[in-house]
C-alpha cells in the first residue's frame, strides 16, 4: 500500500445562506487511523462530516476518497455514499424495520448482497455486540445505547472505506455511553478508519490517533492527543479545553 490517505480534504469552504460555516479546512485521515474532531457547538463538525458524505453541497475546495475527487459534481453520489459509513447523533434506525432488516437493508439494496449472506454477516455482528436475541425486535423496543450500537453495526457491515461518527453518544444517558464507546474501540482494533466528532474528551484521548480542534469553521490545531490535551500550542485550543 502507498501512503495515500483514505480521506483528504483541501481548502474546504461551506456557507449557509452566505454565512461561512467552514472556512478552508485541510485535513487528512490515514488508513486504520481514528481522528477525533472536537470543538464548540456550532463550530462546524456536523457540517464537515455531512459534506464528506455529500449530504451537504460544498462551496469550494476538494474532497478525495482514496485519491478520487468525490467533490466533483460528476461523481456518482449514491455509489460514493455507499463507500462511507455514517452514524448520527440519533434517529439513525428505521422504526418500521426490524433490527435485522435495518442492518441488512443497505447490503441488500445498495451492494447487491443476497439476503441470506447479508443476514449471516449481520447476525455475526449482532452476536458480537450481544444482541443476537434482538434480531426481530423493532428499534423502539431498544435502549438508546442498543440503538446506537445497531446503527454502528449497520454502518460497517458493508465494509466502508471510511466511518464517520457524529457525536454518537451525546443523546444517550450517561450509563449507556460506555457500551457504545467500547464498540468504537473495538472497531479501531479491527482496523477501521474513523473520523468522529465528539465531546467525550477522555475517550478521544484514549482512542484517537489524531485530535483536530475546530473553531468557527477553522481548523485551529491538530496533533496527537497528548499534544492537544496536555500541550496545546494555540491559545484558542487551550481556552476551549480549559472548560473541560
Amino acid at each position, binding site marked *: 500500500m502507498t501512503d495515500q490517505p483514505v480521506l483528504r480534504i483541501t481548502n474546504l469552504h461551506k456557507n449557509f445562506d452566505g454565512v461561512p460555516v467552514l472556512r478552508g479546512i485541510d485535513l487528512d485521515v490515514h488508513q486504520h487511523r481514528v481522528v477525533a474532531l472536537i470543538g464548540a457547538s456550532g463550530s462546524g463538525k456536523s457540517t464537515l462530516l455531512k459534506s464528506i*458524505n455529500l*449530504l451537504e453541497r460544498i462551496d469550494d475546495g476538494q474532497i478525495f476518497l482514496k485519491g478520487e475527487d468525490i467533490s466533483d459534481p460528476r461523481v456518482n453520489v*449514491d*455509489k460514493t*455514499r*455507499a*463507500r*462511507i459509513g*455514517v452514524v*448520527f447523533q*440519533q*434517529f*439513525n*434506525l*428505521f*422504526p*418500521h424495520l426490524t433490527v435485522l432488516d435495518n442492518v441488512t*437493508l*443497505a447490503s441488500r*439494496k*445498495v*451492494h447487491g448482497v443476497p439476503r441470506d449472506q447479508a443476514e449471516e454477516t449481520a447476525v455475526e455482528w449482532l452476536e458480537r455486540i450481544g444482541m443476537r436475541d434482538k434480531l426481530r425486535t*423493532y*428499534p*423502539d423496543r431498544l435502549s438508546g445505547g442498543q440503538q446506537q450500537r445497531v446503527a454502528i453495526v*449497520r*454502518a460497517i457491515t458493508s465494509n466502508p472505506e471510511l466511518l464517520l461518527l457524529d457525536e454518537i453518544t451525546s443523546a444517550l444517558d450517561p450509563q449507556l455511553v460506555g457500551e457504545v464507546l467500547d464498540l468504537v474501540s473495538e472497531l479501531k482494533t479491527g482496523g477501521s478508519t474513523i473520523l468522529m466528532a465528539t465531546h467525550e474528551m477522555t475517550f478521544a484521548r484514549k482512542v484517537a490517533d489524531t485530535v483536530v480542534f475546530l473553531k468557527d469553521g477553522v481548523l485551529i490545531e491538530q496533533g496527537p492527543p497528548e499534544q492537544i490535551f496536555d500541550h496545546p500550542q494555540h491559545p484558542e485550543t487551550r481556552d476551549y479545553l480549559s472548560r473541560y
Partner: protein
Amino acid sequence: MLISAASTIALAAVLWLTVINTHGWAEVQRSFFDPKIAWASLPTLLLGLWLNVQVLFFAVIGVAIFATLIAVVRTLRGAVFFPLRFLAAAYTDLFRGIPVIIVLYLIGFGIPGLGLFPRLPPEFWGTIALILTYSAYVSEVLRAGMEAVHPSQRLAARSLGLSHAQTLRMIVLPQGVRKVGPALMNDFVSMQKDVGLVSVLGAVDVVRSAGIIESTYANFTPYVVAGLLFVLISWPFIRVADWLSARAQRREQIGGTV
C-alpha cells in the same frame, strides 16, 4: 356491565314502543319491512352487491396507485418539477371540491359521449370516477403522512447509499402510510358506501337491483335489505379503523417512534 346492558335494553324498548305506536306504523312496516319480499329479493340483491364488491376492489387498487403517484409528485422539490407539482395540486383541489355524484355524471356520461373509446359498461366509468374522486383525498392524506416522517430518516437512508427512489419507496412511504393508517381506513370505509353510486349511471348493482324490485312490488323493503348488506360488509372495516385510531392514539401518548 349489567347496568349498561339493562339501560340499553330499556332505551331500545322505549324507542320500539314509541315507533310501533305511531299513527302510520302499520303502513311503514308493510312497505319497508316485509320479510317475504326481503327474502325473495335477497338473491338478486346479492348478485348486485357482487358488482359493488368488484367495483370496490378495482377502485381501491386504482386509488392506491394513483394517489401515491400524486402524493409523490407533490413532494418533489426543485424548479424542474414545477409544472408537474402544479398539475397535481390543481387536480387535488378540483376533485376535492366537486361532489362525487357530479364527477360520476361527467365521467360516466361525458367521456363515452366523446366516442373515443369502445363501448364500456357503466360500472367501468363509475370505477374511474370513484378513483378520480378518492385519489384526491387519499393523496392528501398520504402526503401529510410522508411529510410527517422525520427528515433524519431520509438523511439516514441517503447516507447508506440508497437512491432517492429507494428512499421514497422503502423508507418514507411505508412510514408515512403507517402514520396515517386510521385516516386511510376511514376513506376506505366511505368509499365502500360510495360504490353504491355507480347505480346512477345505470350499472345494475345492489342499489339499482333494489330499485328494480321496488318498482315491481311497490315496496321499499329491498332498499332496507341493501342498506343492511352495506352495513354488514363495512362493519369489520369500521371496527378496524377504530382500532387503528385507538392504537395510534395510545402510541402517541407513550411517545412511540412509529
